[in-house]
């Protein structure tokens, strides 16, 4: 079972960000399933979590539905992350969600990136804003990402949005298909810290020896 988790930072109902996220997920899923893989899909909309995200920023702990969303991300085999462009970058809500994740939580996870904006002049935001963020978090952003400007939803011309989504989904599916890549190298340092039966538990002798 490939556990695909979609994170959408769109604000309106319905939002072009969510539309792009859903289509990227569907293209990925279709390709995985055509190759015989089982896929589970979980969508995290950030807007309903907005207050909880800011609370977590201020208190240091995640509560309620946000804790559930973070747990989904922890269990994800791969992520689809899509944000609207605000003031030349990802939205503050999108960034804040990643800011409140524990360090290491998405380390090694493949991510299909997407962004939306009013005009195509923002398209490089994928490369100058999103990629550095996910590189810092040690996730694995896929080489092909998709940017959708408002105009893209009204054209079927060459290079049309659908074709770019299909290509991104196919490539991403082939990267995350079971057996296509080595197992995620290191798991996040979360629960295992409290597991004193685990091989990597930091016992006092190892603490003392630094």
């Amino acid at each position: 079972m490939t556990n695909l988790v979609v994170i959408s930072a769109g604000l309106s109902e319905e939002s072009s960000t969510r539309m792009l996220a859903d289509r990227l997920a569907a293209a990925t899923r279709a390709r995985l399933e055509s190759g015989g893989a089982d896929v589970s899909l979980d969508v995290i909309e950030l807007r309903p979590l907005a207050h909880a995200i800011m609370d977590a920023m201020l208190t240091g702990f995640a509560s309620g539905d946000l804790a559930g969303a973070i747990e989904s991300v922890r269990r994800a085999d791969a992520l689809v992350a899509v944000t609207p462009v605000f003031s030349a970058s990802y939205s503050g809500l999108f960034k804040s969600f990643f800011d409140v994740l524990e360090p290491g939580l998405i380390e090694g996870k493949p991510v299909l990136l997407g962004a939306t904006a009013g005009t195509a002049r923002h398209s490089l935001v994928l490369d100058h804003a999103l990629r550095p963020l996910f590189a810092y978090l040690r996730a694995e952003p896929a080489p092909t990402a998709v940017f959708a400007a408002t105009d893209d939803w009204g054209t079927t011309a060459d290079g049309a949005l659908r074709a770019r989504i299909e290509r991104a989904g196919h490539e991403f599916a082939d990267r995350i298909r079971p057996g296509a890549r080595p197992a995620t190298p290191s798991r996040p340092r979360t629960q295992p810290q409290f597991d004193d039966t685990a091989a990597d538990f930091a016992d006092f002798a190892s603490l003392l020896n630094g």
Partner: protein
Amino acid sequence: MQIGIFSVGDVTADPTTGRTPTEHERIKNTVAIAKKAEDIGLDVVALGQHHNPPFAASSPTTTLAYIAAQTERIILSTSTTLITTTDPVRIAEDYAQLQHLSDGRMDLMLGRGNTGPVYPWFGKDIREGIALAVENYALLHRLWREEDVDWQGRFRTPLQGFTATPRPLDGVAPFVWHGSIRSPEIAEQAAYYGDGFFSNHIFWPASHAQQMVELYRRRFEHYGHGLAHQAIVGLGGQFFMRPNSQDAVDEFRPYFDNAPVYGHGPSLEEFTSQTPLTVGSPQQVLERTLSFREYAGDYQRQLFLVDHAGLPLKTVLEQLDLLGEILPDMRAGFAEGRPADVPDAPTHAALVERGETREVLA
């Protein structure tokens, strides 16, 4: 079971009046609160250590010694003594001095709790927080137990033939608690030494405190200090009470909404449901506090934060009066169903006795 109060010593404006106490007022108020704590029958008063505004608490042993001179019975402790940025040699000396002056009526809680800029001011690196806590305490532990110490580590200048003075009272090192909100390494450290572990669970959900305490208990047993349920556990707590619970909510809300740590974030109602904060009637505070045992097991020390968020002295003293009224029921509640083999938190007298027993056995 020891019940007491702990303070961080922040100088915070009262959000209902906009007035900020002077440092002098805050320091004197801290003493007044400690004396009141003894008057209402509490067992422990613990003070914080900080080295930057808005705190007026850079020298806990000075304040604690002053309180010791004006009280008879209450145990003086810290919340916390900064093991990361304070030279362990100074901790050994200062607290041994306090131990003598207070006739053993003291212990201390070590913590890393410090803001980022404070580390470099003391020549340290915040990223080494755990390593500093581990190495510094390893030295402190020896300084109280060995007269002639040769020592070399990563974080301070080496020692050759060093004797920390004064020597601990009756040759018994002060009892040490290790405090932490989220670091399992500190629970492991407390367990290794058989020291106390204090989970300051006031800012975080109970599930975190439970995870920390359970790890500490298992490791305490692992290191041979006793059974898991006999480990020495302390918990933080936080309340605001009035005889009528709605009055408590109405009065506390502006303080909550503007509190330095969690203010402008979750609502009072959300925070009370997510953390141990209880705002309501004395009966509600009593019931909530006694429920901590459901996830921490039978424990040894319960400390409440009462002087924070800009609450005026008068209000804090009223809170202590109300705590005094429910104290007998709280003690009875904690005693109920407590297994006979769960120890009390070690006092100086108990540690002296334990040392003598060991000598006889040897």
